[in-house]
């Protein structure tokens, strides 16, 4: 652990009635880093995000974000501290328009009084316009988000995530169900976001992870199996065992 770290997960254990979803997981993220997290089904990838965002309270261990402990804080408080999350299947507000979805994400402060009393600030409108250009949704401003294609929904959610201006972006399977072209564009988008932001991407898609060209953490059975660049990972015997199949017994 050092000062440059944005996030430290220390010995995180999550037990669901005896089943260890996470088992003494340790992970450190530097500011501005892009990190991919991979692992087989049931390795604890989503639980790992749930712990950081406050949805699941760890049984043991500590989550330090910007020097503060996140354990026990409410989800919305953690979000306000600067942790943004994109869900596995696109979670957008389908009955609202693209514009309204983004308004929800960029509005600050997030108090009822501010929202009911005041109109959205001009700089926030400009920000929405910028975001819509980045994700190619400028023509869909007034369309209901529910009428977007799957890929557009994924991108809208990414735009909403960026609009929150989080220091840490947690992105869960952003390319599930996307075409190859969309996958490549998403990879480039995420790469361009890192540096200024710290981004954690969770995915299965090896091609996509390779394209991210980042450090990779491999999770297995609730703990970090190994960390390193894609090259190192692929040569690691433990990873090969887990991913390419153990001899059946």
């Amino acid at each position: 652990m050092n000062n440059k770290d944005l996030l430290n997960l220390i010995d995180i254990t999550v037990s669901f009635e005896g089943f260890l979803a996470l088992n003494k997981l340790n992970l450190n993220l530097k500011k501005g880093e892009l990190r991919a997290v991979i692992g087989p089904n049931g390795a604890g990838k989503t639980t790992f995000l749930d712990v950081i965002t406050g949805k699941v309270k760890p049984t043991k261990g500590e989550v330090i974000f910007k020097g503060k402990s996140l354990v026990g804080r409410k989800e919305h408080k953690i979000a306000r501290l600067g942790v943004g999350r994109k869900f596995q299947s696109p979670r957008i507000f389908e009955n609202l328009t693209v514009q309204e979805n983004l308004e929800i994400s960029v509005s600050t402060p997030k108090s009822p009084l501010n929202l009911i009393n005041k109109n959205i600030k001009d700089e926030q409108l400009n920000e929405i316009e910028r975001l819509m250009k980045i994700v190619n949704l400028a023509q869909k401003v007034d369309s209901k988000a529910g009428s977007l294609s799957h890929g557009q929904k994924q991108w809208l959610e990414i735009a909403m995530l960026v609009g929150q201006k989080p220091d840490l972006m947690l992105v869960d399977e952003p390319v599930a169900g996307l075409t190859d072209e969309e996958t490549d564009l998403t990879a480039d988008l995420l790469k361009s976001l890192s540096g200024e932001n710290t981004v954690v991407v969770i995915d299965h898609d090896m091609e996509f992870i390779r394209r991210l060209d980042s450090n990779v953490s491999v999770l297995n059975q609730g703990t970090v199996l190994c960390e390193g660049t894609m090259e190192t990972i692929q040569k690691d015997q433990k990873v090969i065992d887990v991913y390419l199949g153990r001899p059946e017994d």
Partner: protein
Amino acid sequence: MSISKFKFDKRIVLSFWILLIALIIAAPSLLPVFRLNLLGRYLSLSIVALGVDLIWGYTGLLSLGQGIFFALGGYCAAMYLQITSSSEFPNNIPEFFALYGVEKLPFFWEPFKSPVFTFFAIWIIPALVAGLIGFLVFRNRIKGVYFSILTQASLLVFFNFFNGQQKLINGTNGLKTDVTQLFGQMVGSESMQRIFFWITAILVIAAWFFAKWVVRGRFGNILIGIRDDEPRVRFTGYNPVIFKTIVFSIAGGLAGISGALYTVQSGIVSPQFMTVPFSIEMVIWVAVGGRGTLLGAILGAVFINYAKSLVSEALPASWMFIQGGLFILVVTALPEGVLGWIQGDGPRNLLQRFGLKRKIETYPSLEVNNKEGDNE
């Protein structure tokens, strides 16, 4: 889609306003006092329906306990009227106390001697009670069907409490208001009832504007967000508990106003306002009129209740069947309610089915997207 739909909405809203204002201006001279009084009552019920639409139609909170707040508003108004009209009774307290041998006014009646206090109590007390119940429930993340059951249970608690307290609020008999005096006039008199009708009409419009203001911008969008995906709202940095508490409290306040207006026009408030079927009816008005439309809540409350009184006069005892049937029809055939169906493509689809209108070649959304110059 957005552009054409917007115009269509405007046309409905405009025609509604013209109809409503014409109705309100014409009603007192056209309708006999009996009918006018009924219309006034039903208009006051549309205010509680607006609240139901805010919490259920927009925020997804299906409350089966709005009768609590409705009755609280009614009791506040009735207590004031009873006290101000009690000078000729023994001990200068409302007449019913003598029946139970009560000689001293219970302490909580004291502030209702003040018209100013009562004016605020009618909506603030129900709003506070709703806010308190709401906060405790929402903080514990109770939602969906558990929330509905909890509100109904609370309703029963309030009903039983009010029903049993003869010495405090005349229990099951309730508090009469029609023979009380307000500003030197009998509340049940024709001239007073006319005034109440006007007040109700104005307050319905004011309540509609208020509800519209609540859901107008980002606040309303958050409510819709909570309805559709509450965890997502939370992870975006909003605290749904606060938003839900506020809107539940607003609905409680509206219910209180509604209850007070209904009480003075029906001449009595009693624990009957807190029966289970009545609170469910409120939900039915909104479901039939159209959830999340506000206007639908008003129209649903007025038309269903008017139909109820007309049907009950002609065929007593058949109304419950009709109301049940109406609800089943709406749930199965018009899930968006009548107004939601009109605002959607309902009428056009119906005409098409009978071959009276040209079919659209593709999905409407596709056609419009092309017009917008989509580059996909």
